[in-house]
């Protein structure tokens, strides 16, 4: 699908959601929220990511990833949840010098982590401030495609930990999060021609996210309110310890009901300094969350 096509689809989805009404966790950032004890949450996100053809590795090519991410969270105690995430990706590489596409498909490294929310200050009926900590490990069962040369794995168990703060006041919500992932992977992927995603090089990875969530509708909740529409604006930064870094601006929309959430967002880079992998050109995500 061309970028123009994706843009049109994004606009249509955004228009659909703007006619309804939505959550505090933006599509690309974490929040200090978790399911309550005995409650499951399933989150699925379909993401299309296009990588810049004029990458620093000097390959004239166009790379597009179509990723379906599935996350299952379970609240096993008050203020504690266990989370498992598994993405699968279809990658299409369009080499400028070839008439054929180079396709690969497979599971990307999974992740399992615990989330603990020890700090909570509920100031008023709606206003609250919460802080949560995460710790987990990525599981190196992502697939490598010999034919295309694509790798969906860092080939190592990589621990990560993070902290996230959520503050909500009336119609406004702010989330600030930081996460550090240690990469124990070998050096094989460094400079590999098809190393495209952040975290796929042999470097530690830092994610810094800030999101602002504004409730567009309703202006005030009533006893008859069953849903809400939110406008989200995110700044997502990806920093690798080799000093490669990208900063994205991510506007989006969410509709939240009592048992499900719909979300969409477009990510565009506003600052990039990349030397060892392809630059991200843009990314679009559509997702759904269901609780039961």
């Amino acid at each position, binding site marked *: 699908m061309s970028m123009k096509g994706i843009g049109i689809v994004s606009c249509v989805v955004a228009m659909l959601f703007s006619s309804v009404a*939505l*959550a*505090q966790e933006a599509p690309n950032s974490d929040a200090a*929220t*978790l*399911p*309550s*004890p*005995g*409650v499951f949450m399933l989150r699925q996100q379909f993401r299309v990511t296009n990588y810049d053809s004029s990458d620093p590795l000097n390959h004239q090519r166009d790379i597009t990833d179509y990723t379906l991410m599935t996350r299952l969270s379970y609240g096993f105690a*008050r*203020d504690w949840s266990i989370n498992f995430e598994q993405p699968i990706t279809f990658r299409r590489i369009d080499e400028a010098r070839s008439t054929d596409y180079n396709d690969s498909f497979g599971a990307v490294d999974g992740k399992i982590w615990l989330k603990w*929310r020890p700090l*909570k200050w*509920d*100031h*008023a*009926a*709606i*206003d*609250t401030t919460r802080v949560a900590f995460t710790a987990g490990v990525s599981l190196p069962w992502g697939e490598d495609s010999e034919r295309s040369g694509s790798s969906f794995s860092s080939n190592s168990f990589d621990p990560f930990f993070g902290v996230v703060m959520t503050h*909500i006041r009336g119609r406004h*919500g702010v989330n600030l999060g930081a996460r550090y992932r240690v990469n124990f992977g070998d050096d094989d992927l460094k400079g590999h021609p098809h190393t495209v995603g952040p975290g796929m090089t042999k470097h530690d990875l830092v994610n810094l996210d800030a999101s602002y969530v504004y409730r567009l509708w309703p202006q*005030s*909740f*009533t*006893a008859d*309110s*069953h*849903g*809400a529409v939110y406008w989200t604006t995110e700044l997502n930064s990806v920093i690798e310890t080799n000093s490669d870094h990208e900063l994205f601006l991510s506007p989006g929309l969410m509709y*939240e*009901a*009592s*048992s499900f*959430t719909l979300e969409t967002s477009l990510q565009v880079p506003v600052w990039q300094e990349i030397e060892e992998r392809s630059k991200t050109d843009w990314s679009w995500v559509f997702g759904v969350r269901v*609780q039961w």
Partner: protein
Amino acid sequence: MSSLIFKVAFMFVVMVATVQQLWAQPATQPARFELTDAKQLIEAPSKAILAVKGLSCPQCAGNIERQLDRIKAVQEFKLDLDDGIVTLTLRDKSSVSRDRLAKAVEDAGYTLDKVWAQPAGE
């Protein structure tokens, strides 16, 4: 003339007695009262009114509803998100303690501020 004065005086006495009687009329229903003791019970047909802090989104409504649904005594749930007021209708001949309601609210991830018992019909 004395007859007229007598009639006016009689009517005045009747009016004062009537007003006094109405003034002293006790309320037909006792007013709602706050539960401050953890073990204090709310018994049906009274309703439980909960003031909850931190309910910031529709998903929060779902979270608290799921936890309150686990209390057998709770028959019906109504939430006003903007004021953080949860109104619970209890099943016939059932009761629930303030302690149990506080546990459900805390498990859902929120803070229970106050609980009132509201007698039926109020």
